């Protein structure tokens, strides 16, 4: 049978029981669950953050490595280029030196040959004069002698040149 008193008092009793259970039985659990949820969430967020940091760090490292590699290559290339150029310069210098030496030697030979030729010419002319003197057995005057030498030199010069 429906009893109004029981009806009202059971609502009140239940509400009191609910208040007590919620306050002393449920709230600590809910607080703990919330704490765990927050903990897990922060852990996940932190993990994500550190992963992102690690990724950024890695890409930075990679970039630095690339840069270093590029630089090394550039330095090597430059060095190679410089070495090439230096080598070429050295060869050119050596060639120049060789050419100069050859020139000098040639000039010296030429000069010596000319000297020798003039010496030979002098001795040949004097010899020829002496020879002709001896052949002719006569003393020629100094002027005629000079003239003859000149003539001989001239002929020799024509002969040589």
């Amino acid at each position, binding site marked *: 049978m429906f009893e109004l008193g029981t009806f009202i008092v059971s609502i009140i009793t239940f509400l009191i*029981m609910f208040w007590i*259970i919620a306050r002393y039985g*449920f709230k600590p659990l809910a607080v703990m669950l919330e704490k765990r949820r927050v903990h897990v969430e922060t852990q996940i967020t932190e993990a994500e953050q550190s992963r992102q940091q690690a990724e950024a760090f890695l890409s930075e490292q990679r970039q630095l490595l690339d840069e270093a590699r590029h630089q090394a290559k550039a330095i090597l290339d430059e060095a190679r280029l410089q070495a090439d150029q230096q080598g070429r310069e050295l060869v050119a210098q050596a060639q120049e030196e060789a050419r100069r030496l050859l020139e000098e030697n040639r000039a010296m030979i030429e000069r010596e040959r000319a000297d020798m030729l003039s010496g030979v010419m002098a001795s040949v002319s004097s010899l020829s004069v002496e020879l002709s003197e001896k052949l002719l057995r006569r003393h020629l005057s100094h002027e005629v002698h000079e003239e003859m030498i000149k003539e001989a030199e001239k002929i020799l010069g024509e002969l040589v040149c």
Partner: protein
Amino acid sequence: MPAFPYLLYNWHGGLFKINITTIGMMILTGLIVLIFLRIAMRRLDMRKPTKMQNLVEWMIDFTASMARDTMPSEEVVQWVLPFAFTMLIFLFVSNWLGVIATVAIHQNTPIPWLGLTAANLAAGHNEVPLFDSPTANMSMTLGMAVMVWLLSHARGLRHPRQYFSHFKNPMAIIEEITNPLTHGMRLFGNIFAGEALISVILGIPLLFGFIPIGLPLLLIWLLYSGFVSTIQAYVFTILMTLYVGQKSYGPSSHH
């Protein structure tokens, strides 16, 4: 009809009589729930939960998922969670108390101020129940249902426009009467029938004075009653979340 002891039996012609057994059993149920939760909560730890703590956490999760299935937004779920959790565990314990045991004493001398008049005692075969399911009392279950009803309407009135536009349909008004009625009577009927049939089966006489022919029947019925007790606690709570959820008009966050 057993003779229950009453308070205020003669006040205003018995209009406000209060069933002492029912209220006492409610208080006992509340204490059992509280003690269970307090034991489960010893060494409450975020990282290393004990078995009891795991059980209670599972119960909270179960209640929350139940509420999520029937309510529009997570905010409402979190709001109703303590109430739904308390209601579920409270009804579970109170339904099971009647399955585990009912205690009645024989009272031959009437105690008129407790409502145990000679006529009432005679109608109840001098049996005065002292330990019983509180949910086997119609007034109590209707009280719970009306409390849920009031709660849902109080929540609905937070958004008056949507709340009142809902009542343009006359069927909605009928529903508002039938919902709490069926909500309460369903719980009462199931638990009361279980207990009534248990007492009937217990009343089967022994064959030849020593063979309990009712025993297999009793075991089957006890198992079934236990099942019904569990299911009814669940049904009552899920209907509660459904009714409150229907009147929660805030922004919906899932579904």
